C-alpha cells in the first residue's frame, strides 16, 4: 500500500481564532482519524495537528490562511473533515 499526501487550503473564520477550546476539540478529532500524520501550516510555521500546544502556538486568528496536509491513509477524507471542523468553529 502506498501513502500519498493530500493538501487542502482554507481560512480561519472563527471570530476569536483557534483558541484553547476549539484546539482541544480539533486534537480530539485528529486522534479519531486514520492518517498517521496531519499537519497544519501557515505561511511561516507548521504544527503537528495532534499537539494542542503546537496548534495554539501557530497563533491562528480570524482570517489566517492555512494549509492542511494529511498523509498515511484516508488522506482526503481526513483533510475534508478537518476543514469542515475549522469552518464550523463559531465562538
Amino acid at each position, binding site marked *: 500500500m502506498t501513502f500519498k499526501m493530500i493538501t487542502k487550503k482554507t481560512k480561519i473564520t472563527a471570530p476569536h481564532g483557534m483558541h484553547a477550546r476549539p484546539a*482541544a476539540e480539533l486534537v480530539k478529532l485528529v486522534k479519531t482519524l486514520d492518517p498517521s500524520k496531519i499537519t497544519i501550516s501557515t505561511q511561516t510555521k507548521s504544527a503537528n495537528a495532534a499537539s494542542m*500546544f503546537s496548534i495554539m502556538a501557530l497563533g491562528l486568528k480570524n482570517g489566517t490562511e492555512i494549509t492542511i496536509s494529511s498523509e498515511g491513509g484516508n488522506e482526503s477524507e481526513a483533510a475534508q473533515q478537518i476543514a469542515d471542523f475549522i469552518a464550523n468553529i463559531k465562538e
Partner: protein
Amino acid sequence: MEILQSKIKSEGIAFGTAFVVENDEIRKHASTLIGEEGQAKFKEAMAKVEKDLTKAAEKNEVFAAHLEMLHDPMLEENVIENIKEGADVNSAIRIAEGRITYMFGDIDDDYLKSRLDDVKDVIDRLLAFIDGRDQVNPYDNLPEGSIIVAHNLAPSDTTKMDIGKVVGFVTDLGSLTTHVGIFARYNGIIAVVGINKCEKKIKNGDELILDGGRGLVIINSDDQTLMEYRREAKLEEEDNNAQLPTTPLEYKDRQISVFGNAGNLNEVRNVIMSGADGVGLFRSEFLYMQTSTMPDEDIQNRAYSEAVQICSGKPLTIRLLDIGGDKGLPYMQLPKEDNPFLGIRGIRLTLRNKDIFKTQVRAILRASALGEIRIMLPMVSMTSEITDAKNLIKECMCELEKEDVSFDKNIKIGIMIETPATVLCAEEFAKLVDFFSIGTNDLTQYIMSADRGNAEMSYLCFAEQPAVQKAIKMSIDAAHKVGIPIGMCGEHASLSSATETLLKYGLDFFSVAPPSIHKIKKNIRNCK
C-alpha cells in the same frame, strides 16, 4: 505551668497561643527525584491531575481543553525525555514549560497569546502535586497571635501562612541557620528551635511564652511568671524604640557600619528604612528566578538602577549570581552532581558561562553611574578566579567605554569568605580585592564538614565552634594586614551574643536581616 528547654539560644520574647501542626513524617522533597523515581512521580502527578481535570470538566468545558493539553506530546514526552537526560522531575517540567512558552512567544495576537495562561495553569497543577502544594492548607484560619508548633517547618510551610498572624515558631528540628531560623529573623518572628517532640508535648490552644534568649517555651504560665516576662518584654521594646543614628557608629575610634541583607527590591527598601548604612548583601538570584529565560542586560540594569536609587547615596553591594548545586534555574540545565555543595556553584558556574557573567556585570556597571555599587564574588577558592573575574569586568568596562556609556571606573570588587581556602590564604586574596565579607553559613558547614541542612548535624554546624571562630579571626587579621575592610554577612552577624566578640576581633562592618539592623546598631553603641 510546664517549661521546655532547648540547647539552642535565639533572642526575643513572644506571647501567643499554640497552633500545633501535625506532620506525620517529614515530606520527602519529591521535586528533586530523578531517574526512574522521577518518572514514576511524574506519572503519578499526571494521573492525579487527569482525575482532577476530568472532574472539573464536567462543570466547565474549559477544563476539557486543559485535559487535552495535559496529554500533549510536547509536554508529556518532553518531560520524560528531560528526566532521561538527567533532570529532576521539577526541572524537567519547567524545561518543557520553557519550550512551550518560547513557542508562544512570537504570536502577535494578544487574545491567543493570553491562552498561555491555560498552559501555565495546567503545568502549575502538575508542579503543585509534585511540590506538595495541592494538599489542604493546614494554616487556613490561623488565629491572630499564633505560635506555630511543628516537628519541622519547610519553605513550603512558611509560604502558606498568613505571617501577620504569627508571633512565634517552636520546632523540634532545624537551627538558626536553616529555613526556620532565617525566615523567623527576616520576619521579626521569635523562634525556639530544638525542642524535642514539641508537637507532642504542646497542645493546640495552650498559652505559650517563648523566651528565645534562654531557649525556653513556657506552657500555660502562672501569673507571676507572665508578669515578669511582660515587664522584660516592655523594657526590650522601649530599648528597641530608642533612636539610633543612620550613619556608621564609632567604636574605639573605628567607624563600624551596619548594612542590611536583601533578596529583592522590597527588601532593599526595608533595609534603608530600617536605618542601615547601606546594603551589604544584595542577592541577585531573584532576578533570575522570576523569569522563564535568562534575564537580559536591560531587565537587570533596571533592577540594579532602582536598587541603587533606593539606597540614596549609601553603598549597594551586589553579590554576583550564586546558583548551582542545590540552587538551580528552571531554564538552565545543570549537571547532576553527587555533592552539589562541593560542585559547580557561584563563580565556578559563571566563569564557565562568560555570557551570564558579562551580562550581569555590564548591567551592574551601567547602574554604577547612579550611586555607589560594590561587586561581590561568591564561592571563590583560588586567586586565579579573582584574576579571571577582574579580566572579564575589565572587558565589560572597555566595551562600555567604546559605547560611550558612563559607569564607575573605580567600582569596588570584593569576595565572600566562605571557603576554607580563602581563609587559609586570606592575605594573598586580600591583595587582589577591595573588601572581604564573611559568609558564616557556608563557611561553617565547610569548616566543620557538616551539612547545614541536616538536622542531625546541628550540633556541629554553628559559628561559635572554635574552629570557625579561629577562621573568622584569621580572615580579619589578614584583611587588616593588607589594609582592606572586612565584614560579615552570614547569620552569625545578627546574633546579639556575637557582636562584642566580632568587634574585638576587628570586624569593620556587619550585614544583617532588616529586623536585626536596629538591634546590632544598639549592641555596637553599648560596646564602649
